[in-house]
């Protein structure tokens, strides 16, 4: 009974570490790059149609 609980704990621990790693090493950087890319694209498109952006 006790070992099963310990096993469950260990599983949760690994799961949390993995989730944290996945999010801050992969997901958020990828999202940031996409976000910045989209921002650049929007400025490009705005400039193509409506002249220069001030920042």
């Amino acid at each position, binding site marked *: 009974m006790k070992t099963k609980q310990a096993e469950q704990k260990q599983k949760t621990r690994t799961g949390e570490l993995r989730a944290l790693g996945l999010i801050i*090493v992969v997901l958020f950087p990828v999202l940031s790059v996409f976000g910045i890319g989209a921002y650049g694209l929007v*400025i490009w498109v705005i400039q193509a149609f409506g002249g220069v952006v001030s920042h």
Partner: protein
Amino acid sequence: MRWLKNLWLTLNRPATFLTLGTISLAGFIMGVVFWGGFNTAIEATNTEEFCISCHSMESKPYQELQKTVHWSNHSGVRATCPDCHVPHSWGRKIARKMEASSDVWGWFFQTVNTDAKFESKRMEMASREWARFDRDDSLACKGCHDYDSMKWDSMSKLAQKQMKRAAENDQSCVDCHKGIAHTLPDMGTARAPELIAEVGTGPNSFNLQQDYYSALTKPLYFSENGDVEAGTLNVATKVKVLESTDRRVKIAISGWRKKIGAGRVIYYDFGINMLTAQLSKDAAKTDGIINGFEEKEDDMTGLKWQRVETQLWTDAEYLIAEQQPLWDYARDTFRSSCSVCHTQPDEAHFDANTWPGMFQGMIAFVNMDQDTQALVQKYLQQHSSTFVKKEH
């Protein structure tokens, strides 16, 4: 799919083993590492080494730059590619980086990898770059050059005048300073692509005995299929179509000529130096090509003028039914090209015989192909005080 569900379950409840400290520290450190890494990567693409790592950039623009003052000068400042070609503010820099993704396309499909390919695209690429400079008011130039820091005293009188005017309007530098860091595209030989895009190449069939106007300076021929040229017909000239075949039309040109030499230049009207057509010596000397009529003497110059008519063949293309589109294009070109450096004078400020001298004196300052030059000059003459006097 199961791992995704497990991941979501883990993320969606308070952490049981990881402490708040571990999580926030990990987030903070990763944030710093990411942002540093991102900017380092952006900076790496913003170096000269990166730009000239492509053969087409190294072999042409980079070599051309080395012959200019932006490469070597007595102040020891050197401009690198991104100094001029990448905006310095963050937002627009990112936008330019996105725009540059099309360069990757060009690199992949090798659109400018040889000398010939590069030269054939030079005009297009240069125009695109000028448009960017214009759009940014040449901010990249102004990163180093500042109107307020210019030493006016060491400029020539003319330069001072032009520069002060530009400073007042905070004008874009490349309006005047084109071709200063790379070779200027050849713009004198192209046959006015923008003009033709505006006015068209002319109808497919002609109504005989009707008037048409030349959209370019056109060659004249003796016969309907011979290659011997009899001269050139000036742009925006009214001609009457007499006969037409698939390739060519026979046209009647009328005007006045000066009775000097072979008298091979035909002008618009008596005493007005407005070019209509210029015949070859052979054509002018051949009997029956030029038919002469009444003569008049010009009191101003003492020259004898003669009214003439000639009938010759020309290619069927670039003869259009309306003259107004030509004048519209010429007016726009005149206004935009001349106002870059100064207030352009009114068309009716000079008379038809004064305009050519004025115009030719200024033409070196602008980039205009020969057809457009001829058209604008004719526009100015046709709208000069000689013809619009009554409206004043």
